[in-house]
């Protein structure tokens, strides 16, 4: 006869969880949701910072000259494609371009055009060819070409804008909001940035359309050497009506912008973690109550208090470990849905994937899950271990 007793206290604890599969599943689900929420939050924090950094790096822009006012708000709006109510004189561009530290500079005029009939607002951006070195990811689709002149009524559409408008290169369309007819000279390939949804026209055309002659919304600048940022910033700051915002400062501003949203989600995650800890506590207390007689039996068989404690604590830890594993999987699977919700709260979110479920995020979540399990399991396990063997054996459910 082949006897293979491969079970230990751990095996016994594991099998005890299978006695009430529905209750075990419910408890594990509760922990999973809490851990998934926590994982999403942590992954969002990581991903947001990473994507923001990547997007700012990709821009090739080290600083922005914006009109006086709140510099970070202005720069954020310009970067993410929102119009400004104030503007810079065109002379600021000439001065900026002449600075010895500046490699490339590009003037921008951005205006929003509300289109209530379509239920959306378009962003029109006046640019010159000087923008092209600062947007290295720009690729024109086949058949596209740059504006024929600085004053032409030509438009280059972002990939999404072209899809929304159902326009291709060579098409003409009338824009009732501006009272002009435009010819599509180019369509940009999708870049995953805010550019995808914008309408680009020659700067002078934009200034004329929006009655802003010789005015600019911002000037994007790339320096010859990033190490010159400090001194260039000091000089450019002296241009009348303009102020400098560096990309490093921008990064901090963006992170602050999402700070309040993160606090909200953190509170939700903390609440979910607390609820899941309570669900483990309730499950384990019910387990102790249901199995009081059995605990008495174990004591009669020679189980010590610490072994009874260990058995119940292990059951609780298993619930938490299972919940953590499923929670991380859930965060991975449902991450895109969570990202959509988070994005709706953060208006200036980067375009790339915001959830970065890295190994340290997974480890942190599993650690928190395990702490929940151990923390919530201590009291029921202690209660079980303190039961008098004789009282436990007399117990009738």
């Amino acid at each position, binding site marked *: 006869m082949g*006897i293979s*007793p491969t*079970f230990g206290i751990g095996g016994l604890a594991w099998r005890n969880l299978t006695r009430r599969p529905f209750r075990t599943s419910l408890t594990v689900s509760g922990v999973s949701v809490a851990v998934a929420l926590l994982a999403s939050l942590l992954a969002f924090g990581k991903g947001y910072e990473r994507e923001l950094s990547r997007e700012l790096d990709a821009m090739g822009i080290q600083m922005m000259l914006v009109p006086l006012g709140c510099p970070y708000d202005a720069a954020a709006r310009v970067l993410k494609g929102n119009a400004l109510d104030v503007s810079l004189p065109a002379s600021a561009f000439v001065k900026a371009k002449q600075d010895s530290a500046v490699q490339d500079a590009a003037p921008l005029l951005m205006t929003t055009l509300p289109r209530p009939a379509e239920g959306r607002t378009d962003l029109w951006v006046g640019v010159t060819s000087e923008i092209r070195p600062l947007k290295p990811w720009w690729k024109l689709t086949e058949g596209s070409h740059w504006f024929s002149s600085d004053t032409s009524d030509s438009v280059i559409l972002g990939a999404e804008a072209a899809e929304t408008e159902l326009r291709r290169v060579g098409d003409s369309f009338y824009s009732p909001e501006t009272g002009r007819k435009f010819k599509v000279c180019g369509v940009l390939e999708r870049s995953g940035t805010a550019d995808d949804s914008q309408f680009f026209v020659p700067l002078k055309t934009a200034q004329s359309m929006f009655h802003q002659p010789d005015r600019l919304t911002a000037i994007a600048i790339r320096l010859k050497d990033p190490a010159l940022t400090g001194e260039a910033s000091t000089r450019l700051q002296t241009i009348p009506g303009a102020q400098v915002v560096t990309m490093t400062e921008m990064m901090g501003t963006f992170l602050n912008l999402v700070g309040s949203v993160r606090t909200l989600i953190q509170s939700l995650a903390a609440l979910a973690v607390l609820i899941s800890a309570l669900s483990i506590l309730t499950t384990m207390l019910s387990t102790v109550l249901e199995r009081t007689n059995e605990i008495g039996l*174990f004591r*009669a068989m*020679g189980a010590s208090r610490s072994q009874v404690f260990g058995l119940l604590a292990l059951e609780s830890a298993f619930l938490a470990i299972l919940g953590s594993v499923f929670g991380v999987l859930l965060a991975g699977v449902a991450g895109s849905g969570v990202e959509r919700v988070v994005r709706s709260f953060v208006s200036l979110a980067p375009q790339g994937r915001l959830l970065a479920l890295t190994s340290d995020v997974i480890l942190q979540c599993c650690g928190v899950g395990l702490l929940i399990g151990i923390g919530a399991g201590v009291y029921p396990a202690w209660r079980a271990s303190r039961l008098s063997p*004789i009282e436990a*054996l007399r117990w009738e459910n």
Partner: protein
Amino acid sequence: MKSVDNVVLRAESLTKIYRRGVEEVRALDGVTFSIEEGEFVSIVGQSGSGKTTLLNLIGCMDTPTSGTIEIDGHETSRLSDRQSTRLRSEKIGFVFQHFGLIPTLSVEENIMLPTLFARRAAKGKASELLEQVGLSHRHKHRPHELSGGEMQRVAIARALINSPALLLADEPTGNLDSTNGEAILRLFTDLNRAGLTIIVVTHNPALADAAHRQLNLQDGHLLLESQL
């Protein structure tokens, strides 16, 4: 009758008093007796006479209010929880009326359970015991696949896995029909013939009569000790 010389259990003036509110209940009152190695003793009496209380005191599951108990030379009435746990693990095997098998474990795992708590390996011993109780062919089965008699045989094998000095059984045939009850009686007799000391609390006259001696309890007093 078996010739016996060595005392394996000695109880002196054993008294157990419970308090129920302001009321004082003398479950046992000055009980004195001794049991020698290899004896088969039954404890009989009406419900509430103190039988189970006595068995619990013998099994170190409870402590007496006064008096002493000695098991295999060890005074057990004032042991700490850790010491009494160890004594139960090493010297005592319990059999209960309700079998107490763990539903998620197989027959062999149920039998091995006390070795888990005692941190002992007893693989060969489990095989022997399964053969002894006639359930080798059922070793992989779960308790719900067994009859009542088979479950009690598994419980007896489990009680013997750590080679105890004493086997204590509380109404072992109480949940069984007469056929299975007789089978358990035969098993106890066989185990006793092999040298095991058995103390059984029972209302079953056949089982009580099969013992060498009966300890008759009434209202916590030991009435008589009749040699069979």
